Every structure is written in structure tokens, then in C-alpha cells.
């Protein structure tokens, strides 16, 4: 325990001399972020983010509302650029490849790194068409029977039994929890290499939340999962690593149990103990 060096960045001045997180977490990195900064118009949203996100694990990004968690996760698959007025600088690498290189098509980044948003957004079409929407664009179905293909992913999110007799119904008819699992199936059907979840349970009831959390733990066997949450308990339940963000800066990062047992910064300690957030 004592030999483990936790990152310390109590104040920005001290942060400059602290070792980069890259050197601390030793498991292979899926994402490497170097000096990532985001501005919205003239307002800085994220500043000087340096970190690694591990393979085959769930990494939770936590912090109070408005701290830049969602912004951070959206920079990982370049969906942030869909918002007008955003400027991203610094470096984001996925498995060694610079995602912001000029030769990279942002659309292929988005396909490779699937994202689930806060509120489930069913597309205005049938349940089956929803699952196949991205997959058929990317030519993933490859002559396989459309229903069989969709079934694999609906089973993966335990939705198949609930919808198998009404695949032609409009997706808006499903409940909130079912819609969020449908969105998960829709993203998985494009066969991504990593999964990003932006507060996927914030619009769901506790039962549906538990359902999604079970899937999150299950999914990390196949790829790295990044989950944004302002819910401390959820971060503790589902994640292996946490990144704690406060006012656009990375305050603390490390294995979940260590950060929760012995947060090195006062901010993180206060946040974890529920003093603010």
C-alpha cells in the first residue's frame, strides 16, 4: 500500500512538478491524453489534462456537475466537435494512434469508439432499424440475416426477450431503461473497440440503473469502458480506476479502491464523502 504513489495535484503549481499519471498506472493504456485542453468560445472548459485510461477495465470520470466530465469523454471519440464553438488542443491517442491527426476521419473515430449519452435517444424508426442503423451504414452485417444480427446485440443487453415479438414497433414505445439498453445495443452493433458512457443512468430509475451497471461490468471483458458519473456510489460500484475532475482540471487519478480509501487531495476527499457535488 505504502509503496503505491498516488498522484498529487492539490494546486496547479504543485501539479506542474508532479509525475505524469502515465508513469503511475502500469497496466497497458487504451487512451493516452497529453496536455488536453478544450475551450468553448473564449471560456476554458478543460485544462492540461494528462492521463492514461487502461485496457480491459472500467474507468470512471467523476466530479461535480459542470466540471467538464462530459466534455472530456466526448473528446475521446471526437463527438465534442458536433457542438459549435468548441476548440480542442493537445493530444488524444487510442492504442498509440493520434485521434486528432489530420489524416484521421472523425467519423471513423466515432465508429471505433462508441458512446452512450445521458438521455436515451431512440431514432424515429422501428426497434430493429434502430439496432441496425449504424451497423448497416458501416457494412457490418455482411449478408447475415438482419434479425439474427440484431438479435446478437439485443441479447447482449438482455433486451431480446422483451422485444422479440415487436421488432417492428417504434422504438419510442419502449420504457426509459429499455431505450437506454437499445441505444447500447445500437452502439455495440457497429462493433466498436471501446465504449464511452456519458452518465448513462442519469435519466433512469434505480432498477434500470442496476441493469445498466451489470452490463458495464460485463462489457469490460471485451474492451475498455469509460463511464462518466456524478454519482460517487456508482463510480465506486462499477469502476476499476477513477479520474476526479474539478473545474476543468484533473485533480486525482488512480485505482478506485485506493482513491476511495485514501484520497490524496482535499477536494477529492470532500467530494467522495459527500461534502459537495
Amino acid at each position, binding site marked *: 500500500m505504502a509503496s503505491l504513489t498516488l498522484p498529487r495535484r492539490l494546486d496547479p503549481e504543485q501539479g506542474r512538478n508532479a509525475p505524469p499519471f502515465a508513469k503511475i498506472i502500469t497496466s497497458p493504456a487504451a487512451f493516452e491524453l497529453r496536455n488536453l485542453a478544450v475551450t468553448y468560445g473564449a471560456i476554458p472548459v478543460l485544462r492540461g489534462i494528462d492521463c492514461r485510461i487502461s485496457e480491459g477495465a472500467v474507468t470512471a470520470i467523476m466530479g461535480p456537475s459542470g466540471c467538464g466530465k462530459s466534455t472530456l469523454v466526448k473528446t475521446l*471519440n471526437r*463527438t465534442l466537435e*458536433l*457542438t*459549435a464553438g468548441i476548440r480542442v488542443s493537445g493530444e488524444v491517442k487510442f492504442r498509440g494512434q493520434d485521434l486528432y491527426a489530420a489524416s484521421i476521419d472523425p*467519423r*471513423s*473515430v*466515432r*465508429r*471505433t469508439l*462508441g*458512446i452512450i*449519452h445521458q*438521455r436515451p*435517444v431512440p*431514432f*424515429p*424508426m422501428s426497434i430493429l432499424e434502430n439496432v441496425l*442503423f*449504424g451497423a448497416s*451504414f*458501416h457494412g457490418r452485417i455482411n449478408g447475415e440475416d438482419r434479425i439474427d444480427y440484431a438479435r446478437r446485440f439485443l441479447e447482449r443487453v438482455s433486451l431480446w426477450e422483451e422485444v422479440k415479438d415487436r421488432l417492428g414497433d*417504434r422504438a419510442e414505445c419502449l420504457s426509459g431503461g429499455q431505450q437506454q439498453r437499445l*441505444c447500447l445495443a*445500437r*452502439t455495440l452493433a*457497429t462493433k466498436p473497440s471501446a465504449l464511452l458512457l456519458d452518465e448513462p443512468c442519469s435519466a433512469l430509475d434505480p432498477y434500470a440503473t442496476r441493469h445498466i451497471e451489470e452490463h458495464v461490468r460485463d462489457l469490460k471483458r471485451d474492451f475498455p469502458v469509460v463511464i462518466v458519473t456524478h454519482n460517487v456510489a456508482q463510480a465506486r460500484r462499477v469502476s476499476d480506476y477513477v479520474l476526479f475532475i474539478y473545474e476543468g482540471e484533473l485533480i486525482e487519478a488512480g485505482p478506485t479502491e485506493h482513491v476511495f480509501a485514501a484520497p490524496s487531495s482535499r477536494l477529492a476527499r470532500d467530494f467522495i464523502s459527500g461534502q459537495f457535488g
Partner: protein
Amino acid sequence: MSAWVEPLRPSAIAADRLYVALGWLAGAIGFALPLGIVGFLVVEGIGRISWDFLLLPPMGYPLGSSGGIAPAIQGSLALVGLGLALALPLALASAIGLSEYVEPSGRMAKALRFAAESLAAVPAILYGLFGYTVFVVFCRFEVSLLSGALTLGLMMLPIILIGTHAALQAIEFELRESALALGVSRSYAMRRIFLPRALPGIVAVTVLAAGHAVGSAAPVMFTASVAYARGAPALDAPVMTLPTHLYYIVSEALDLEQAYGTALVLVIGLLCANAFAMLLRRWLIR
């Protein structure tokens, strides 16, 4: 017994009552006006409505004092149908381009929007004069169905463009984001999600534009219409239209009942088109 629940101030109650009364008055006027117009036309014109009136050409001397308005109905439908066939694809393409491919806060977008809005505000008679100068004289299309349809198309274009653009802009950011986050192209998302989502709005504005066009005499007066035509409408021949026919009958003071009949057919046609659009809209939204 002390009153824990204090009554509101009488002045606040009176002001609220006045507000409600004014609201009802405004609503009643808005309802009574179209009802009054249609009612008046029904009372004055229903006597003339018959199969003969709908299916026969104008007859009698002076022409139009008896007989029917069949060629005018045909001509109006042909003009608007052809005009829509020209305007709709162009308006949809412009609206999609403006909404998806032009930097929304940039100069280009502002200039395009301003141009479309100005175009929609141009008076109908100016479209008529422009159509006459360009299509009839310069392009040598003569006074014909083609010239009139082009002119009406120009008149409908900005209305459909602005309405379609508004319908596309009304699509929630979350839907856009979720669709594009799957890494699909904008054109695929447009075809599969954004256009279907905007379709009810597009239908509504298209019917509005078509109704506006079918009832306008000014744009077709110099470009397409004549006092008398018969047979099926042809591209290179002039046609009769309902509004210009109405104008002729009234200005020649031939037979006012014939005029009311014509007006009634025009208004009922527009009502049917609007009702159909509403049903289609409801069916599309589901």
C-alpha cells in the same frame, strides 16, 4: 375564526378576468372570420355548384355568364402541380444545404437566410412582372403553363425553403448528436433520421405555399392565364386559372353568382388541401 387562507387582492382577480376575456375575444375573432367568409360564400354561391359547374367550360355571351369552370380548375391544378415539382426539390436541397453544410453563424448562412426571407416578402405582382420579363419575353416561353409554373415555383420556393429550414433546425441536438456519434455520414443521417423527423413540418409548409400559389392571380395574370381555354392543359399553351377567372367575371360584372360559385370552389379546395395536410401530418407524426 381567523382566515389562514387569505383571499387574493380584488384588483388581481379583476385583471386576470380581463385577460381571460380578451383572450376569448381574440380567439372568437380568429374563429369567426374564416367561418364568416366561407359561410358568406356558401350562402351566395352554393346555388351555382353542380356537376355541370365543375365539369363544363364557361359558356354564354358574354363568355362566363353561364356554363362551368372546369378548365380553370384544371389550369390551376396543373400550374401549382408543375410549380411544386420544380420548387420542392430545389427548396429542400437549399434548406438541407443551409442547415447542415453551411457554418450556421457564418456570413454565408446569414446572407442566404436574409435572401430567402426577402424573397418570401416580395409581393406577388412583382413575381408576375419578373416571370413575364424573364420567362415569357426573354426565354420566349410565351404566355403558357410553363411560364406560369416557373413563376409560381419561384414564389413558393422561399416559403418552402424557410419552413423546411426551420423544421430541420427544430430537430433536437441530442438526436443529431446520437445519430452522428455512430460515425455515420451526414447524408445518411439526413436521409434516415433528420428528413423523416422534419417531414410533418415540410408537408405543412408545402401545403401552405401551394395554397398561397393557387389563390394568387397576380403571378399568373401576365405569364400563364387567358380568359378562355379548353382541352387538357399543355406546357406551351396558356391556361385558365381560378383566381384570374374570378377576377374577369367580377371586373366585367358578368354574373356575380357565377363569381361566388367560383370563389366557393377555390376556398373549399384550399380547405380540403389543408385538411388533407393535417391528416397526413398526424399520420406522419403518429
